[in-house]
């Protein structure tokens, strides 16, 4: 996954309003008006957030001129989650080795012998 795309995904997710919009879209498509309802925000304000989400590829908007429903595009979020999971596994695996290494190191110091 490209760094630019990840940067865009994370930058888009960094804002709580945008996360709330995405959370709303998890339950189905919605119009800009519907999305604006829970927030004390003007329609242009919401539109700005939607543009960020759209540029990040996190939502797609319908073509109809009047009512352009927004729909969640889960792929980049899935990729970001996978990428984070990769890091988690990397650290967990490294910590396993660190733990074993330090155990070994201390064992050697104290009793001159290998643990395994």
């Amino acid at each position: 996954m490209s760094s630019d795309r990840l940067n865009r995904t994370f930058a888009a997710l960094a804002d709580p309003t945008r996360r709330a919009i995405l959370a709303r879209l998890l339950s189905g498509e919605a119009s800009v008006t519907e999305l604006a309802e829970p927030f004390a925000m003007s329609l242009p304000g919401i539109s700005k957030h939607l543009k960020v989400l759209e540029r990040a590829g996190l939502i797609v908007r319908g073509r109809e001129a009047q009512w352009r429903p927004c729909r969640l595009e889960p792929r980049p979020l899935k990729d970001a989650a996978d990428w984070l999971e990769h890091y988690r596994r990397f650290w967990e695996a490294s910590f396993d080795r660190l733990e074993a290494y330090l155990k070994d190191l201390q064992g050697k110091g104290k009793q001159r012998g290998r643990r395994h």
Partner: protein
Amino acid sequence: MGADIDAAADIVAADTTDRQLVVTRVIDAPRPLVFRAWIEPDHVARWWGPQGFTTTFCDMDIRPGGKFRFCMRSPEGTDHWKRGIYREIIAPERIVFTFAWEDAAGNPGHELLTTVTFAEQGTRTKLTLHQAIFQTVEACNDHHRGWTSCMERFAEYMTPAQARKA
């Protein structure tokens, strides 16, 4: 598609103010030793990376602003390079660094700000690793509480503009 939606829900709905990856581990070794294992190349090369990987290159300039670059070789013989810059080295309590994998052309990928804290628990040490995912200035503004390292990044970000004015 179902699995994609679940993963999406996971990353969106996790109601955390600081979106971070957190990994903790209690290690049965005294804190000064655990800390040394992070800052001395001979130690680091012995444990960094998953089982079966070997560290074939390890260059660490341990000081704030110092760079590091490692190469990890997989059991299949593939090299994985990673690099970063140390932000804080506070022995034996805390290390803060940026961290990114390089692609095949040597370009760094998405950079994460990583904070490792070492807490004494009797003769053992609790290691906590945070990876801050959001590093935009906007995120710094959102999550200003106690996020000093992020603010330092913000300061760095601002400095060139001010320097130009001066």
